[in-house]
């Protein structure tokens, strides 16, 4: 999980992440793809960074694609810049 300082570093706008935890079934693929931004606590409680810094785009995108139930939504304001 990145820190607040992490989220504000870098010159490009940060990402926005939300996870539909109704869908999430704790397959934990996001945790392998982006271990700094997703983690499982206990048996199946997913905690994630809703505002990762832009330089972690590749990891976040890998996590989004890796989710077997496609529960991760990402907004990338820097994408069109």
């Amino acid at each position, binding site marked *: 999980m990145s820190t607040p300082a992490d989220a504000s570093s870098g010159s490009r706008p940060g990402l*926005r992440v939300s996870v*539909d935890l109704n869908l999430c079934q*704790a397959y934990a693929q996001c945790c392998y793809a982006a271990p700094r931004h997703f983690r499982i606590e*206990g048996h*199946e*409680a997913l905690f994630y960074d*809703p*505002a990762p810094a832009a330089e972690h785009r590749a990891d976040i995108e890998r996590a989004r694609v890796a989710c077997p139930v496609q529960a991760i939504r990402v907004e990338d304001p820097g994408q069109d810049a």
Partner: protein
Amino acid sequence: MAPVFERAVVVGAGLAALRGAEAMREAGFAGPLTIVGAEPCRPYDRPPLSKHVLAGTVPAEATTLPSALGPDVDWRLGSPAVSLDRVGRTVRLADGRTLPYDRLLIATGTRARPWPNPHEGRLAGVFTLRGRDDAAALRRALAARPKRVLVIGGGFIGCEVASLCRQLGLPVTLVEPGPTPLARVLGRTVGAFIGAIHAGHGVEMRCGAEVEWLEDADGRLVRAHLVDGTRIDADVAVVALGAVRNTEWLDGSGLSSDPGGIDCDGAGYVLDADGRPDRHIAAAGDVARFPHPLYDDRRVVLEHWSQAVAQGIHAGRLLVGATPERPYGELPTFWSTQGKLVVKSAGLTEGADAVAITQGDPAAGRFVALYGREGRCIAAVAVDSARWLPAHADLVAARAPFPPGGTATDRPKGVAVFEPGFA
């Protein structure tokens, strides 16, 4: 498809409002679109507030929701709507401005129910938890390592806050007038199972107890006095007594609304006082009271994240003419992360006359409870057993016979059926 010159206004700037506005644009609506929000910020996600934000792992401002909306949206943030004129088709804002509309989406949501004594509710150390600012303020108080946190109310927010305090290593007492936490929504039987898990993590449970008044010293909370005469020393109290729906601004509009919500027809259009739909206005999210087809058209209001998304999208599409006018009837679902424990649900437990443990073991802290009413499955609750929920949700959606046929994989002797324990 609505003509492009029509004006759409969304009142409310939460999850339902955002997803509704996105759905309008996605359906091809290209006219002027205005979003009115009481708070001075773009729509944000609430579930992380009672978890990540209170834990201090992310700042409250980081919860802004991902959005597909482009720059062609007129955001009016920081000034709530105060009245609706359906004849002139205008919405008036607190700052005095008036917005004309042709299509109106009402998604004003709820606010935290305050502590009944206003003076005590304003004491330093007394909090509610609904908005982003609430979460930031409570986080600061928890970071200061209070000697004890008092949680007033054992619903989902109360359980989330209490278990989070234990994760932070803070002493916490939860006071709940009912016989167990979560008894109103899940019944006493399942409520007791979950309460035992929290008690095992060190939450001091005071069920069947009620806070009478809050004592302060120099304006700062020092202890709570209970109806039974006992006292709890605490420097932080979290009032978790549920939510009040934001419908006051509709008084005088001629719509059928009250503190319990705004009435909608099956399609999603709001109803006037005579029960006639106003086809220029739809409602969605925590504020919408609608007949649910899966539950014999009983009128329900659902304060669920998934409901805000699905009904917001439905209402947005409806208003711009993109959805056939069929009843909205998504299966209600929600989740609650309580410390490291995950509680997930599908369906509505109201009226249940039996509950069966169909998987796992409450004593082990992981199980699925299936609720029945008059021989049909009406709801399922999974505790740290999310992967079992979809199959149970299918039983609920199909109104399958209860108890379900066959036996669970892990209990060859059959499924135990209990009294659910609703008041």
